[in-house]
């Protein structure tokens, strides 16, 4: 399995499928586990880390996940490959650029990844498009049970699954949902979302996790409390309260744009189209920012039947778009694909070799212009 087999296509997290996929990009559940009888990684010498790695690698590679699985030795992988895995949300930045023997086990369809020797011995995650937390939970529980048949986890009846950091104790579960909230940003209401999250004791991060900015109007919201509450309750809270409330905020903001700020909306979309179709150099940040506005316009067209001068123009951008319905114009799939393929490591892996920043910006602009060329 070569990474280039994955690189030219979008994966589960941006498939555009699943419930509420216009606003809820993806759902993810991650469990942290440590093996009984070993120190936490912080205190392990290289030999011990290597032993843990081998043990967990053997167990994971023997699992029946209904899909091909492959192993990547993260500490030995080329830097570009590591960036690629981070871009696809398969491993964390911490794992890519950490220390010591460590690896990742990945299912070919990318719905499952395991990081071995990240902050804990084992971190497993299941990822699905749209709001599908219950399905993620079912899958990851099953995988956790299968792994536990073959190893013993560090666990105490009082504190639950024992993790290297006390903030992950107990269920050691991290439930995350990735949201696209462009209307809240444009109408200056994104603070409302941050405050709601804070009131519910949830963490908000950007596209690539801890410490990252909200590029492209994407926000990841996740639980912080893991002890004294059950996995099912955390998930129910997200599915029944948290996410519906935020989706409601975003939809209200979109309606507000249509009813009271149509000029602002059209301006954002027109500027995005103009730049994306003409710029010679586009940075990754800028591409995400502009594509976000196009995605907003397309979603409003598809989900709300919205028709404004700028949104209607999106119908003319269809020549190169193989997914386009001629009467509807540019498709959401094309935009979703552009989000992913214009990320730096994706660009370079598909091109076949590393590129400096300027050349990346040129190539990115080329790819986007080509995907969006209309009837000229």
């Amino acid at each position, binding site marked *: 399995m070569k990474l280039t087999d994955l690189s030219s296509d979008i994966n589960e997290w941006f498939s555009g499928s699943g419930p509420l996929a216009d606003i809820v990009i993806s759902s993810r559940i991650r469990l942290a586990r440590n093996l*009984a*009888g070993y120190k936490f990684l912080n205190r392990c010498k290289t030999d011990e880390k290597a032993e843990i790695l081998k043990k967990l690698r053997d167990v994971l590679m023997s699992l029946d996940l209904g899909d091909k699985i492959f192993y990547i030795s993260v500490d030995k992988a080329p830097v570009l490959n590591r960036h690629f895995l981070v871009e696809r949300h398969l491993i964390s930045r911490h794992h890519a650029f950490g220390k010591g023997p460590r690896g990742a086990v990945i299912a070919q369809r990318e719905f499952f990844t395991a990081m071995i020797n990240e902050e804990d011995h084992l971190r497993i995650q299941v990822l699905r498009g749209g709001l599908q937390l219950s399905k993620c939970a079912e899958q990851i529980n099953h995988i956790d*049970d299968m792994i536990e048949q073959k190893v013993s986890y*560090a666990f105490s009846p009082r504190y639950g699954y024992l993790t290297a950091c006390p903030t992950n104790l107990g269920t050691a579960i991290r439930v995350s949902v990735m949201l696209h909230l462009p209307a809240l940003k444009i109408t200056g209401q994104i603070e409302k979302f941050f405050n709601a999250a804070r009131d519910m004791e949830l963490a908000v991060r950007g596209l690539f996790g801890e410490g990252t900015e909200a590029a492209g109007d994407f926000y990841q919201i996740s639980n912080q*409390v893991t002890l*004294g509450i059950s996995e099912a309750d955390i998930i129910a809270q997200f599915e029944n309260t948290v996410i519906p409330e935020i989706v409601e905020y975003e939809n209200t903001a979109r309606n507000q744009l249509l009813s009271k700020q149509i000029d602002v909306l059209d301006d954002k979309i027109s500027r995005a189209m103009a730049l994306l179709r003409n710029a010679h150099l586009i940075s990754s940040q800028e591409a995400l920012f502009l594509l976000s506005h196009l995605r907003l316009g397309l979603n409003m067209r598809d989900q709300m039947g919205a028709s404004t001068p700028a949104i209607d123009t999106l119908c003319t951008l269809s020549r190169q778009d193989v997914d386009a319905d001629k009467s509807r114009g540019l498709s959401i799939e094309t935009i979703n694909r552009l989000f992913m393929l214009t990320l730096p490591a994706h660009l370079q892996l598909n091109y076949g070799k590393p590129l400096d920043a300027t050349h990346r910006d040129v190539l990115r602009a080329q790819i986007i212009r080509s995907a969006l060329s209309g009837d000229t």
Partner: protein
Amino acid sequence: MQCQICNKNDATIHLTEIADGQRAEMHVCEHCAQEQGIAVKSQIPLNELLSSLLAVQPTDEELFGPSEKGAACPHCGFTLAQFRKEAVLGCPYDYEVFEKPLLNLIKKAHNGKTNHCGKVPSKTSTGTKEQIKLIALRQQLEAAVRSEDYERAAKLRDKINKCEN
């Protein structure tokens, strides 16, 4: 003070940039800040909060209480001072060794809760005694290999395998 961009709203965000020895100030309202893509962090994720809390505390005593100063875990040698630097523990047994000092931190992190009520491993899990024994055996194995006492190392390896099965 009024926002320097729109001149309409009150400036609630004040930015100071120092570059090349020059200092530049900007005063903007929330709306314009967002327009300009100026990120305003209104919330700090918990891990960062934990790290910053730990970094700011001047002494172990103030954070953890008087009784645990200098104490080290007998199994992995970890101390609270190290925890303060790294924000991660050394081994599962640290939760028992440092139970009292960690309790406050755990309460803060988990909304006052300190007892697990979620999933439990399906196997009758190896109790703490067993887990500690294994950690200790592995420590001894490490020492034996380091001092090139391979006979002892082999015996320890057998013991470990027996314990695990």
